[in-house]
């Protein structure tokens, strides 16, 4: 067929941020996948709880301190996280660099507490189904923290490289912020399940 030019797109920007960016939508889709995964694991938790005569099975409720500290740190990390996003939107390279360093630390710190959360469960993964599901929940969430920490570190390295000052990079930073918020938000119901549901 013969082309008939009816539209000029030459004035459009070469990259869009936020909802204009396909990557943003891709990140959302992946969060939907993983969110469904978390929801299912939580559903399994309640399913097993419904079957058991006592909950937790053959174990006291988990100790609170490690998990609660971790929750506090995760919640606190949201503030610098959102600041990083704002700086990225304004293309303030220096601040973004500092922000990513801070966020790397905020990513590693919870892992320190996570190490103590597993023994605080007072049960092994192979003792019974209760042990299996709480270990799986903690493990699944830990992989999410780990992935995002690695992602943040790589992004930080990138922002100190010659590729840094590029709208595309700032978009990546924003997507990383979005994902970390997701990691924090998904933790809250899991925290409630592991630590507070057995105390009800």
């Amino acid at each position, binding site marked *: 067929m013969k082309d008939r030019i*009816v*539209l000029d797109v*030459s004035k459009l920007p070469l990259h869009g941020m936020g909802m204009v960016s396909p990557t943003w*939508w891709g990140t959302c*889709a992946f969060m939907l996948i993983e969110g469904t995964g978390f929801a299912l694991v939580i559903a399994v938790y309640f399913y097993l709880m419904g079957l058991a005569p006592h909950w937790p099975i053959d174990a006291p409720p988990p100790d609170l301190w490690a998990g609660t500290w971790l929750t506090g740190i995760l919640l606190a990390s949201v503030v610098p996280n959102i600041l990083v996003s704002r700086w990225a939107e304004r293309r303030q390279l220096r601040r973004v660099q500092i922000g990513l360093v801070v966020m790397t630390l905020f990513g590693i710190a919870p892992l320190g507490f996570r190490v103590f959360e597993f023994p605080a469960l007072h049960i092994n*993964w192979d003792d019974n189904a209760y042990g299996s599901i709480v270990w799986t929940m903690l493990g699944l969430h830990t992989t999410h923290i780990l992935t995002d920490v690695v992602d943040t570190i790589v992004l930080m390295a*990138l922002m100190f490289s010659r590729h840094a000052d590029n709208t595309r990079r700032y978009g990546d930073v924003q997507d990383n912020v979005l994902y970390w918020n997701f990691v924090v938000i998904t933790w809250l119901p899991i925290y409630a399940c592991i630590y507070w549901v057995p105390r009800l």
Partner: protein
Amino acid sequence: MGEQETYAALDVDLHDVELEAKLDKTWGSRPGFWRAIATVDHKVIARRYIVTAFVFLILGGLLAMAMRLQLSQPEARFIGPDRYNQIFTMHGSNMMFLFAVPVMEAMAVYLVPLMVGTRNIAFPRLNAFSYWTFLFGGLLLWLSFALDTAPDVGWFAYVPLSGPEYGPGKRADLWAQMITFTELAALAVAVEIVVTVFKQRAPGMSLDRIPVLVWAMLVMSFLVIVAMPAIMVASSTLILDRLVGTQFYNPALGGDALLWQHLFWFFGHPEVYIIFLPAVGLVSSILPTFVGRPLFGYLLLVMALIATGVLSFGLWVHHMFVVGLPRVGESFFTASSMAIAVPAGVQIFCWLATLWAGRPVFRTPLLFVLGFIVTFVMGGLTGVMVASVPLDSQVHDTYFVVAHFHYVLVGGAVFPLIGAVYYWFPKMTGRLMSERLGRWAFGLIFAGFHLTFFPMHILGLWGMPRRVYTYQPELPWAGLNLFVSLSSVVLAAGFLVFFIDVLRSWKNGLPAGPNPWKASTLEWATSSPPPAYNFRRIPVVGSRDPLWSDADLPVAAGMRTDRRELLVTSIVEALPQARESSPSDSVWPFWTAIATAIMLIWSIFSPWAVVWGSIPIAVALIGWFWPKGTPEDES
């Protein structure tokens, strides 16, 4: 990069030939082995996907023939119980995970970017990764079959039969890990399709102008996104039970055998619609072309697609009607399972109305669509039968159900798929398939299918259970079984004719030209096969059937030619928002898939694989995403 330079690379004021040469240079893949590995062209990847899936179809079909041989007479000894169990497990797993879902997604990967008028799929490197992962998963499964250690626990792998106590060896683990491979691949494609449809539609293709096929693929992708995590959770917990001794499925220690069934069918039922909804899309594309008028009831069809998608998550328990669940729950699931007949009916009625108002031209694709309607309606009606709890208590796990779901899956998805191959083959290869062989293929497949599967309804009512490797001579099933086995040869012959036609036409078919059927959607606006960049200029859409409303193609100009660039538009109105770049070829997705495969296969044997195996994956991912300073990185 200065203003002047950027302007120089734009596509304005260029002759078509000149423009095509420049675009070819930017988008085309160079020849060579590693260049072929590195390609991210959605059409090339989709073609590989489709060919691979059809190879798996042939292999799965051969397995079916082997089963029919064994069942052709009572107490036959062609195949022992161990091999037979591997065969029916392989047949089901292969057809669902390595053929049906991948081939439908591959059709989406090929068609959606063309139909929405863009130059490549969103996240094309993820697309390449998806194909390699799928391929490795398939090879893993078939390799295990070749070594006589294939899974033997059914495609549903019910615990405790598949658990650590009753499923020794690595067979069930191989099954579970094959699932992980294929789900990973499927999820990746689903994300690509969603984003392509949301953000890369041609300017003017507002939500109410999206072709029904694209809607179908979009809904299918959402089903994949929400359903597949369930099977991921299921297969991962199964592996954990088997490898590190978790107790999810051990009733003695607080676990539960039915938990598996809930997780499996929460995925497994939507799975049926993951396969069927794309077929609805295929039919809705083929039908208007061969009746010469637009589809009747566009809005109704789209709503029916969405309704089916939503309802499909409320039906999973109808696979568990005989496990002894509380009656209230069963009643709910009976009602919801019956209710899904309504959107299915809407689809059928819209197609019948379109046929009524149109002037049918009996070419092969339409024949398959008509065969689909006749067959699928029957499968849908037996579906209403099994949706009834009491009725299901007689037919569940019998050959009646085998008949039912083959009517739905073969009649409902494979018939439209073969019709679709006849329909889009000219677009994909530039050559037409043979109309004469097409009619033979249709006749043999249609007759062979009904002769093979219809008697199975009766066998089921006569009490023949599924998944038995043989039956005793005193049962009255031998005659019908022999009849079924003989009929399956007719069906196989039909497929043979089809494959011969494909191979012959690929080399010697008549040249097709851009739009051999005078169809209305955008994929027919470009040459056959389409160039690497799909469209010389991005089309601008003003109606639902763009090629039927204008003599020439309204397009947008002002795109760069020196980098891979496509147009990002808004979700609802499809208003242009940005000229986004599209990633260049890369070998990294291939290496990432290799690293992933090593990790997944290793993890069958040791949990530490997850730790150490992640490192090469991380390295490959960094290689994948690290900017290379190409024009595609500019913003």
